[in-house]
């Protein structure tokens, strides 16, 4: 190979990679803001389904499982729910602003991350006042299709109902009080149960039990790393 060949090849590779890189960057710049907004909307929609009895959900604070940003919330019942309609001057759309007066916590919702087989699994879990799991839902993951993605299925999510922290343990095979693993996807099942949900509920318990009343008024509160 002569020097001339080497330069030619280098130039060829650089040029094509530059074009490719620019294309990907362009698409990313166009899509990422939309992606971000849609993901946020989906999370808000999911939050509403976590505690069907709650009239209002208010953010309690942030925490950082696996160095990722996650939030936790209080699900509240209101003494009086004041709804005021506000219209946006720019778009002319009306928006309902809800104000919760005399709020009582009926449970909590925590967002968590579990390290799965091929991705971090983003989960939401709601607990009652005794920190027993009511419901969980999977916000995002990239586990193997056909095996790990079974964690999204209703039959698996149902296995979490009413579980306390001590029972959030994955068992291979039949179990009554613990969480049964999905056959072929034990790692993903573990990630959801023990890493995502259990750590989230543990964090909630540490943060809120005993001191729950005092912390209610605080808007922002940072979890330990």
């Amino acid at each position, binding site marked *: 190979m002569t020097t001339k060949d080497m330069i030619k090849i280098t130039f060829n590779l650089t040029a*094509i990679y530059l074009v490719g890189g620019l294309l990907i960057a362009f698409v990313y710049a166009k*899509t990422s803001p939309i992606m971000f907004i849609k993901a946020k909307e989906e999370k808000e929609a999911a939050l509403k389904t976590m505690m069907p009895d709650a009239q209002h959900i208010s953010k309690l604070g942030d925490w950082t499982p696996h160095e990722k940003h996650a939030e936790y919330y209080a699900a509240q019942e209101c003494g009086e729910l004041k709804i005021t309609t506000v219209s946006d001057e720019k778009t002319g759309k009306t928006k309902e602003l809800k104000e919760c007066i005399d709020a009582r916590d009926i449970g909590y919702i925590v967002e968590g991350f579990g390290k799965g087989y091929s991705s971090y699994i983003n989960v939401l879990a709601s607990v009652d006042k005794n920190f027993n799991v009511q419901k969980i839902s999977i916000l995002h993951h990239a586990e193997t299709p*056909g095996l790990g993605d079974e964690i999204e299925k209703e039959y698996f999510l149902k296995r979490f109902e009413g579980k306390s922290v001590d029972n959030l343990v994955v068992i291979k095979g039949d179990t009554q009080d613990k969480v049964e693993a999905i056959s072929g996807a034990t790692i993903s099942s573990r990630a959801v149960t023990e890493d995502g949900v259990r750590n989230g509920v543990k964090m909630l318990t540490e943060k809120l039990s005993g001191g729950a009343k005092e912390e209610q008024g605080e808007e922002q509160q940072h979890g330990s790393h």
Partner: protein
Amino acid sequence: MAHTDKSNWELIKNGMFSENTIFRMAISLCPSIAVTNSLKNGFSMGIAVIFVQTMVNLTVSLIRNFINPKIRIPIFMLIIAGYVSIIDMSMAAWARPIYKQIGLYIQLIVAFASIFARAEVFAVKNRIIPSVADGLGMGIGFFLAMIVISFFRELLGKGSLWGIPIVSGNPLLIMILPAGGFFAVGILMGFFNWMDARIAARKAAEAETAAGVGIERA
């Protein structure tokens, strides 16, 4: 560079049958085993592959004269990974419901031997239209293989099709586990080879009798 002399229809048929990715070439078996445990999964994967395979073949063929043969492999990698990223991001932004269904499959395609192989074997040596036909054929061939495998695995392993229960009773759970994937692919591959051997034998017999008749007449 050797151009193909096959017609576009022959190229499509070639990908579907005589050079079927799964049953003939036996490449990209890993995803075929991972995702074919239900008909819906197999279908989604198949659709995603048809699209990426065709687009990659088109692009490689389009820029084949700019690619230095010594660095073709990193360039194919870029094209495949680039397409997968672009499709993934666009779907995440603009086609959210479909993304939720097949987003995971799209990401898997980066590591597909079959797509790489067609770029290397065919698209880099041929003009655009035949390359697109080849990509389509290969994609459809893969799609059909996915459908056949996942049909049997879901039916036997879960007793349902497309999530709708069909057979009651205890299904053979092993069929939806990875081991069942190997069984299904192996048995189906054997079946298609056996069919092929029968057809070949019948053709040979016909040729023989035809030849025999010819001799008698003479």
